[in-house]
């Protein structure tokens, strides 16, 4: 693939020597943080649509009692497991950290690129390989014998269900390999972000002047470096238990399956903050931009994220209240978990205080941001409910939990993702989106996702357990509402895709700064899209 001729054909008015959009080597061998960011976003979009389609299969199945879509529970459980893993590892994380992080951390801190551009390339290209392994696992045997395929033990991968007893086939091994590769990808990416932010800020850009999005990625990257190796360790133990006769989680050999849960959630709880912290950063930028005010309590906002990250490592066992731990241990985890509500409350308060008295512009990204603040608070409140060990005894593994974490992730992290998407769309792609289409996307998603998940609180309180393919007719009413909600979101998602195509076809020329005086971060000082290589002269921050 020669990029020279392509550049000549495309060049002319570009003086930044960017290779052709259609050059394969530009993408395969890319060391450019903006191109890699785009790759991450496209990959996340692709994986997200698959994960979204899987949730459609689940909602169609649960529309009424009995079997509609799936032939047996194993198939259903494989789809729920894959939905969870895809959305976490191949949609939210690549989009928020790999996508927006790669695109905007260097731009915001005034760096020409990431510190290790070639490692950045490896970080991305490990992901499609990992995703392929995960997809492949659905089509290979679940058990040593029998026709069942895929791993259906839930995204938490608890043994003995994920051991040879529950899934003796090669499917679970592929899931382990997939997550190992995804984990390596994320750790390399995280190291790259930390090195970039700590060493490559423009002159005058002190840590305490750095935009909150860069702060959020810095903290997220630290969580990744400290949490993901623990998952890798737990998965390696699982792998050797399954294949090489070790007994880490096998009681017959003196092991304990509960230890897997401890290791998993030592990773898993920081992981949920890994998914939401970059979103916090995006929301801070957007709320400040469209209120035309600096963020209220900037330092408190930054250190609230540090506090959330730190506390995130010492609350893991609140995911496992029902394993039989002592009452004092439970009391500790209840108290520690509730403490997280304090820094989170600081953030919610500061966003509202930023809007207070501001000159608010209800653009599409601002709608997503306000929608996020509202819905994330709902999810946070149910989180405080679930933090109580006594309450959790009755709500553990019910739809109440499902509703809770979808409010903070599906309606929280995903809303921040779309907020960032519309906030930076012009900047990244050099074209304007259609405000009407984007607005319709927001309202349909906002209404639809609430119709999906709000009734699931009721289902959970009534006792509907999660990961069940069928249920008693008593639960049918709210399940039907939930499925209708999915259809609304599906229409919204279709409109979202139409919006992308419309903007590309119409090709309305982007402005360098469409948002006016409220947009104060460095990326708005560059053209849209930014030049292929920026900051040949480093910006100076006063």
């Amino acid at each position, binding site marked *: 693939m020669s990029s020279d001729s392509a550049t000549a054909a495309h060049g002319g008015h570009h003086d930044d020597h960017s290779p052709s959009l259609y050059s394969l080597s530009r993408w395969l061998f890319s060391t450019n943080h903006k191109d890699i960011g785009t790759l991450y976003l496209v990959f996340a979009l692709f994986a997200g649509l698959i994960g979204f389609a899987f949730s459609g299969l689940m909602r169609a199945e649960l529309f009424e009692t009995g079997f509609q879509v799936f032939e047996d529970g194993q198939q259903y459980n494989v789809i729920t497991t894959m939905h969870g893993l895809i959305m976490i590892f191949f949609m939210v994380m690549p989009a928020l950290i790999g996508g927006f992080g790669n695109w905007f951390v260097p731009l915001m801190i005034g760096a020409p690129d990431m510190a*290790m551009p070639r490692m950045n390339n490896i970080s991305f290209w490990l992901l499609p390989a990992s995703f392929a392994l995960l997809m492949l696992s659905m089509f290979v045997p679940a058990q040593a014998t029998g026709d069942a395929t895929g791993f259906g033990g839930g995204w938490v991968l608890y043994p003995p269900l994920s051991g040879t007893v529950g899934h003796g086939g090669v499917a679970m091994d592929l899931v382990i390999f997939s997550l190992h590769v995804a984990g390596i990808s994320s*750790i390399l990416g995280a*190291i790259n972000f930390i*090195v970039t932010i700590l*060493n490559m800020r423009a002159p005058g850009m002190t840590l305490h002047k750095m935009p909150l999005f860069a702060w959020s990625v810095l903290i997220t990257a630290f969580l990744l470096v400290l949490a993901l190796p623990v998952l*890798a*360790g737990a998965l390696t133990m699982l792998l050797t238990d399954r294949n090489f006769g070790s007994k*880490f989680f096998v009681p*017959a050999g003196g092991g304990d399956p509960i230890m897997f849960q401890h290791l998993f959630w030592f990773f898993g709880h920081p992981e949920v903050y890994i998914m939401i912290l970059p979103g916090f950063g995006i929301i801070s930028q957007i709320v400040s931009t469209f209120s035309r005010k600096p963020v209220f309590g900037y330092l408190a906002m930054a250190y609230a994220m540090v506090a959330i990250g730190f506390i995130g490592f010492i609350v893991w066992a609140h995911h496992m209240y029902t394993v039989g731990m*002592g009452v004092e241990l439970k009391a500790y985890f209840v108290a520690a978990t509730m403490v997280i509500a304090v820094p989170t409350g600081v953030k919610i308060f500061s966003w509202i205080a930023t809007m207070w008295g501001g000159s608010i512009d209800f653009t599409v990204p601002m709608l997503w941001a306000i929608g996020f603040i509202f819905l994330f608070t709902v999810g946070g409140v149910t989180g405080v409910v679930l933090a109580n060990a006594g309450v959790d005894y009755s709500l553990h593994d019910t739809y109440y939990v499902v509703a809770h974490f979808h409010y903070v992730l599906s309606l929280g992290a995903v809303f921040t993702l779309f907020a960032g998407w519309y906030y930076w769309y012009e900047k990244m792609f050099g074209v304007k989106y259609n405000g009407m289409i984007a607005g319709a996307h927001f309202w349909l998603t906002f209404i639809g996702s609430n119709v999906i998940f709000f009734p699931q609180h009721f289902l959970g309180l009534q006792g509907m357990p999660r990961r069940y393919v069928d249920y008693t007719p008593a639960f049918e009413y709210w399940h039907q509402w939930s499925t209708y909600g999915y259809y609304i979101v599906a229409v919204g998602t279709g409109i979202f895709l139409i919006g992308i195509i419309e903007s590309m076809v119409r090709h309305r020329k982007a402005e360098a700064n469409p948002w006016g005086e409220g947009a104060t971060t460095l990326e708005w000082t560059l053209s849209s899209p930014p030049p292929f290589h920026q900051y040949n002269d480093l910006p100076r921050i006063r």
Partner: protein
Amino acid sequence: MNPGSRITVISLAGAAVGMLALSFAAEPLYSTFCRVTGFGGTTQIADAPPSAVIDRPIRVRFDANAATDIPVDFKPTEEFVDAKLGETILSFYEVTNISDAPIRAVAAYNVAPYKAGKYFNKVECFCFKEKTLQPGRTERLPVIFFVSPELADDRYASDVKSITLSYTYYPAGGIPDSARPQDASAGS
């Protein structure tokens, strides 16, 4: 790359490797923690005889299980024993290999309620090492234990009036194919 970046990269890579190492260190730490604290009903191995026998009754129930893939018949010889705190008790289990091949087996154990694990001391137990069970033979398996009198002074555990001692037999390092149960119900 400038020297500052290199130091950052090396320390971060070190942190990642360190966390990986810690996750494996969790295994010995976890089992030490259980042994020391009696967490999850882990019983203690007595290194000294009981300090005293006090006049506080305790009932110890006996429970026996076998994993689905081990063809043994395993049961206690008595349902329960009534004792006093600090009193040393001898009881027996019986295990029969119902297959045609020798089986190497090992028993996992704990007590319920979990909070009694710290006070349940075994002086001698068949569960301390793995056994080879000859085909068709029935063996009597002794367990000698006492419940330590300190139980009565623990404000969180003094309500315990009865403790269930439970064993589950597992195949140790796999069992020969000839000894495997032909249908799932045979083993349990």
